[in-house]
C-alpha cells in the first residue's frame, strides 16, 4: 500500500508529459499550413528583395551582377527628398486623424448604448467602402469643375474655381479622410472601457474639464492613441493610390516611386528593392522605439 502512491506518481507524471508532447505535435500539425505558407510567400520574398537590391537593373528584368548602385542612389538627395515627403505626409496625416478622431471617439464612447451601435456603423460604412471609390468620390468633389467649386461659386464666396485637385492639400485631405476610421476605432475601444467616474473624481478633487482631460482621459487612453497612430502612420508611409489619383507629379511619394521602378519601363527592380528595404528599416526602427516607449510607460504605471 505504501509503495502504491509513489508508483502512481511516476505513472501520471509520465502520462502528463507524454500528453503534453502529444499536444505540442498536434499544435505543430495544425499550424503547419500557415507556417509553410508564410515562409514561402512572406519570408522568402523578402530574401529575394534583399538579393535583388544588390543586383544590376536591366530594361525589363535584372542582371545577376553585384552592384551597390541601388543603395547609392537611394541615399542620394533626390530620394532622400522623397523619404522626407512621405514621412511628413504620414506624420501630418496621423496628427490630423488624432485631432479629429479623438473627439469623435470620445463622443461615441459616451453616447447611450443604443445610439452607440448606430454611430459605430456610421464610422464603419466608409471604412468598409472600397478605397478607390472613396478616393474617386473626392476627385468628383474637388475637381476644377466639381461640386465644391460649383457650390462655392453659386453661393458667391468665390468667383474663380479653386484648384485643389492635384495639390498636396488634396493629398493630405484624402489621406485623412481614408485613414480617419483607423484612428477612431482603436481610440473608441479604449475610451469605451475608460471609467468615466474617474473624471468625476478628478473634478470633485478640483480639476476643471481641461485639466481632467489632460491628467486623466489622455493618459488612460494612451494605448488607443498608440494603436490608432500605428494603424494610420504605417500604411500612410507606403501610400500609392491617393497621391497617384489626387496628387501631382511634382511631389512624388515613396509608394509612387517604388511602384514606378517596378511597373514603368525601363524597370529598375534593384532600386525598388533598395527603397523598399530602406522603408522597412525605418518602420522597424519606429516600431522598436514605440514598443520601448510603450513598455516604459507601462512599467512606470505599474511601479
Amino acid at each position, binding site marked *: 500500500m505504501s509503495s502504491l502512491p509513489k508508483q502512481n506518481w511516476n505513472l501520471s507524471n509520465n502520462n502528463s508529459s507524454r500528453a503534453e508532447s502529444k*499536444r*505540442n505535435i*498536434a*499544435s*505543430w*500539425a*495544425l*499550424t503547419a499550413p*500557415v*507556417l509553410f*505558407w*508564410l515562409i514561402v*510567400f*512572406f519570408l522568402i*520574398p*523578402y530574401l*529575394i*528583395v534583399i538579393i*535583388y537590391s544588390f543586383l544590376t537593373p536591366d530594361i525589363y*528584368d535584372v542582371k545577376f551582377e553585384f552592384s551597390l548602385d541601388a543603395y547609392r542612389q537611394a541615399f542620394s538627395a533626390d530620394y532622400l527628398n522623397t523619404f522626407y515627403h512621405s514621412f511628413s505626409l504620414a506624420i501630418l496625416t496621423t496628427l490630423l486623424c488624432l485631432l*479629429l478622431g479623438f*473627439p469623435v471617439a470620445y*463622443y*461615441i464612447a459616451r453616447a447611450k448604448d443604443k445610439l452607440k451601435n448606430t454611430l459605430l*456603423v*456610421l*464610422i*464603419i460604412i466608409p471604412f*468598409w*467602402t*472600397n*478605397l478607390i*471609390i472613396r478616393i*474617386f468620390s*473626392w*476627385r*468628383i*468633389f474637388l475637381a476644377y*469643375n466639381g*461640386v465644391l467649386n*460649383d457650390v462655392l461659386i453659386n453661393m458667391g464666396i468665390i468667383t474663380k474655381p479653386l484648384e485643389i485637385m492635384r495639390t498636396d492639400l488634396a493629398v493630405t485631405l484624402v489621406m485623412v*479622410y481614408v485613414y*480617419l476610421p483607423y484612428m477612431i476605432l482603436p481610440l473608441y475601444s479604449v475610451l469605451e472601457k475608460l471609467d468615466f467616474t474617474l473624471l468625476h473624481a478628478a*473634478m470633485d478633487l478640483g480639476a*476643471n*474639464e481641461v485639466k481632467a482631460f489632460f491628467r486623466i482621459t489622455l493618459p488612460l487612453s494612451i494605448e488607443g492613441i498608440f494603436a490608432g497612430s*500605428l494603424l494610420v502612420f*504605417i*500604411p500612410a508611409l*507606403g*501610400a500609392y*493610390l491617393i497621391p497617384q*489619383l489626387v496628387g501631382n507629379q511634382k511631389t512624388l511619394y515613396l509608394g509612387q516611386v517604388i511602384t514606378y521602378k*517596378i*511597373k514603368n519601363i525601363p524597370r529598375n*527592380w534593384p532600386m*525598388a*528593392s533598395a527603397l*523598399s528595404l530602406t522603408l522597412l528599416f525605418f*518602420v522597424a526602427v519606429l516600431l522598436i522605439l514605440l514598443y520601448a516607449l510603450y513598455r516604459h510607460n507601462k512599467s512606470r504605471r505599474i511601479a
Partner: protein
Amino acid sequence: MKRITASRFYKGFNLTAFSLVMTFLYVPIVILVIFSFNDAKIITGWRGFTWKYYAQLWQNDIIKQAFRNTMLIAVLSTLVSTVFGILTALGLQNKKFSGRKLISALIYVPLVIPDILMGVSLALLFNFTRVNTGMFTVLIAHITFCISYTVIVINSRLEGFDYSLVEAAMDLGAKPGYIFWRIKFPLMLPGIIAAALLAFTLSIDDFIITFFTSGRGFDTLPIYVEGTIRHGTITTINSLSTLMIGFTLFLVVITKRMRKVLISAL
C-alpha cells in the same frame, strides 16, 4: 452651476466635432451616388435623372469580367484563409506550444509593414521564379495578406472562450470529438464568420498588392476602376461605385443582423 455649463460646452464641442467629421466622411460619397444618376458626360451640374449609366454598366463585358474575377478571388481567398485561420488559432490554443512565438511573430509582422512592401516582395518572387502572373498569383497574394487577419480574429474569439464549458461537457460525458463539434465549433462560429467577412472585404478592396501581382488580362474591379479613372470615361465608374457602396451597406446590414442573431444565441 458653472460646472454644468462647462461640461455642456465640453459635450457640445464633441458633438460639433462628431457632426463635422460625419459630414466630412459622407458628403463625397453622397455626391458620388447622386451623380451616378446624372444625365451628363462630365461631372459638373445636374442635367436630369437617368439610369443609362447603369445600363451601360450591364453591357460592359470588361466590367462584368472584372467583377467575376474579383468575386472568384475573394471567395477563394476567404475560404482558404479562413480554414487556415481556424487551424492556426486552434494550434495556438496550446499555451505550451513550442512554436507559439514563431508563429505569432509571422502572423503579426505583415500587419505592421506597409502593404506596398508585400506587393513588391511578391512581385519579385514571381519574377524570380518565372511564374506567369495572373489569377493564380493574385490568389496567392490575397491569401497571404488575409491569413494574418483571420488568425487574429478567430484567435481572439478563442482567447475569450470559457474553457469551463469544455469541462462541463466532459463532466456530462462528452468525448473530445463530440465536444469540438457541439460546443467549441458553434461557439467559435461568430469569430469564424467575422474573420471570413473581414477577409472577403479586404480581398475585394485590395488594389496595391493585386496591382503588383496580376498580369495583363486579369483585372479585378479596383484595378479596372483605377485604370479607367486615369485613362477612360468615368461615367460608368459613378454607377459602378454606387453599386459597390450598396454592396458595402448590404454587408454592414447583414453582419449587424447576423451579430444580433449570433449574440442572442450566445
